[in-house]
């Protein structure tokens, strides 16, 4: 049962296309597993689309009245601040005989310690680095070129965890498989967990799990000997 969902603001930015690819993929993957959010996204898209395309005065009636003569588009073009040559663009576009065929892309897989996972569709064309192991953690970086934002697949092997830490920025953990728990409770497949610098946690996975993680700052370890790990905090997430 999925208990943690993206906020309304995040979903709205997602629908607008304003989030970075990393977070957009996170919401897309979550929605694929969460019918509730999927429906929410569909409705919001429909609303935003309708509002976007109705907000100015170019009315369809304009054409119906003008009985659609060739020059009606020219008039239209002059009517607004629209400086495109409609006729030329239309004839360029319609010259193309191409029809885009949808090919269902092949599934992309990744192996961590010989366990093979099929990756969500959103990651199909993303470039994945080879997994790097640190104790019971394995991490494969996803190369998205988003500067300070780091995106990874993080595998926690059974009994493993990430030491008590805070975040300098935000940290998204999306559970793709398995479960883990921290001070706040238990998390399951599909949970979308967004944390910021005000949270401290120490996630542990008894059975092991695979997460999609996005973070825009290094982890900051806060407890005892683990403080020694701080230099590698940026290495994990």
């Amino acid at each position, binding site marked *: 049962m999925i208990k943690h969902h993206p906020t309304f603001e995040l979903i709205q930015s997602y629908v607008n*296309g304003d989030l970075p690819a990393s977070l957009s993929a996170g919401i897309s993957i979550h929605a694929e597993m969460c019918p509730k959010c999927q429906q929410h996204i569909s409705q919001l898209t*429909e609303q935003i689309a309708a509002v976007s395309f109705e907000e100015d005065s170019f*009315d*369809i009636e304009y054409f119906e009245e003008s009985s659609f003569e060739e020059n009606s588009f020219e008039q239209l073009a002059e009517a607004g601040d629209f400086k*495109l040559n*409609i006729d030329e663009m239309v004839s360029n*576009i319609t010259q*193309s005989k191409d029809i885009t065929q949808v090919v269902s892309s092949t599934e992309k897989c990744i192996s961590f310690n010989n366990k093979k996972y099929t990756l969500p569709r959103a990651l199909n064309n993303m470039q994945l680095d080879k997994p790097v192991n640190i104790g019971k953690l394995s991490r494969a970086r996803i190369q998205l070129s988003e500067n300070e934002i780091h995106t990874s697949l993080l595998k926690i092997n059974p009994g493993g965890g990430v030491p008590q830490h805070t975040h300098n920025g935000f940290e998204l953990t999306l559970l793709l498989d398995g479960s883990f728990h921290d001070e706040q409770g238990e998390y399951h497949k599909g949970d979308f967990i967004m944390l910021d610098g005000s949270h401290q946690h120490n996630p542990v996975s008894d059975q092991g799990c695979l997460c999609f993680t996005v973070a825009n700052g290094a982890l900051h370890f806060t407890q005892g000997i683990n403080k020694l790990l701080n230099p590698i905090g940026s290495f994990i997430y």
Partner: protein
Amino acid sequence: MQTNLLSKVTNDKSIPMSDSIDHPQLCQWLKAVAETRDKRAFTHLFAFFAPKIQRISRRKFPNDAQANEVVQETMSNVWRKAHLFDADKGAATTWVYTVMRNVSFDMLRKIKGNKEDNLSDDIWPIAESLQAEDSSFEDHLENKQLLNVIENLPEAQQQVVKGFYLMEMSQEQLATHLNLPLGTIKSRLRLALAKLKVQLGEKHD
């Protein structure tokens, strides 16, 4: 008939459609582009959407040239992907919005990160139309599976099944064609179907 027409709900979506957009007209134009590559319908769509796309894009992109590129690219996609639009799954505005949003997203990534990885269609499959595409693709696979099962039938039964279902011949035509009594055709068909049911049933369990 009359009552049927009246009771038919055209679009049972929960979102109230605004009156200022003629949604059925937009759908009709998109269909005309998809089905008959209708340039005039496309011109209507272009005149409706292009100025709006340009205006929306000017908020996301710093200059006219880039905003115009979004217009060009979005409308090209509308021309090439119109067949993916499914009026039962949502409004034309939603579909075009999705196409535009995806074009802008990929372009912004290209400008900001110098990445030409075109991730948008993986992140936002072109509205629900992709799902429709998927399901017809699955049907296609099942057809294949069905054909395999048919190939395993005894030759005599295969002939009848293929003739009846794939070539859509009538049982009478098959009897004449195969020079067999009609009763034989009927019983072979019945036997074959019983076998198909068992085999397909097993696989579906």
